[in-house]
């Protein structure tokens, strides 16, 4: 956990890619879950944020 937070603070690709992946996965789950409409409503924003973040952070140093 400390390594992950350290990676985020120092703009390391691994940690930020992990964060972006979690956001994309959460967005897709929110989009397709059958439980709460409010989660569905916010799903696209979360997926979009994750995807844009993924594209940007894939240019960060290892």
């Amino acid at each position: 956990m400390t390594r992950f937070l350290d990676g985020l603070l120092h703009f390391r690709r691994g940690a930020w890619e992990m964060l972006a992946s979690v956001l994309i996965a959460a967005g897709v789950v929110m989009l397709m879950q059958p439980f709460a409409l409010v989660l569905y409503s916010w799903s696209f924003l979360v997926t979009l944020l994750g995807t844009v973040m993924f594209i940007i952070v894939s240019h960060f140093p290892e």
Partner: protein
Amino acid sequence: MLHSPVDRVAEATPHAIAKRFRGLSDRSLAWLFVAPSIVLLLAVNIFPLIWTIRLSFTNFRVNRPNAEVEFVGLKNYISILSDKDIWLTMQATAHFLIWTLVLQVLIGFSLAYLINKKFRGNDLWTTIIVLPMMLSPAVVGNFWTFLYQPQIGLFNYAIGFLTGADPSSFSMIGDVALAPWAIVIVDTWMWTPFVMLICLAGLRSIPDSIYEAAECDRASKWRQFWTITIPLVLPFLMLAVLFRGIENFKMFDLVVQLTGGGPGSITELTSINLKREAFEKWRTGYASAYAVILFVTVFGLASIYVKALNKVKER
């Protein structure tokens, strides 16, 4: 004195053309060769994408080309993301996607594992198994509607024969509870051979020497399966899941032919719903926003999946 083919080509090039290209750097020549592909890519992929994003912020209707087009901001996105019917189509897509992937991976890998064993008629069985994949989805959808017929359908007869139930007592494509499973069964029947072929390529790429070394170390078959077969086939399997996942997320033809999205809208997947919005209700701006949402979802999923695939390959 001309020696190489390059010299001969240079000699044969008309002087006017040679003069024009003389002095171009390697980099410029490379750009010159790649330019037609880039122009085609921009015209066919990038421009429509940018145009769709632009339309998604408008109230444009393609059946009213002369009507004034208004900028509506995020209205289309907000109405899609608060529409319960579209939410239901997302759930139908999730059901279809998850179950087809699970079944196709399990059955496809098992078949590949069996086919990989040396036995008589191996090639014949491979050909028979891959036949469904070679058929057109429209044809498959059409003949499965006959197989699912309650009175005369072979599928209902087989289920009745195995379970003792009356074949005409249930309708796979007419029942709200069964229709989602009907499309899963047909897609699995059609596309499991594809997963099987990719897994087979993976299994055949594993050198026998690794298994021989494991035999020397007295590793059991079970251990060999989990520590050699599965890790070495995993990149192939993940590739198959990526292809099938993207394909099934935008599944259209097979389901339209089979159920048309019904009964009601229980099997209406996102692509069918999108087509209705775009080409039946003619809400082009709205449908563009819908398409952008689906695109971002698939793009995001594919990105993390490709990253995971590369990690597995590096291991």
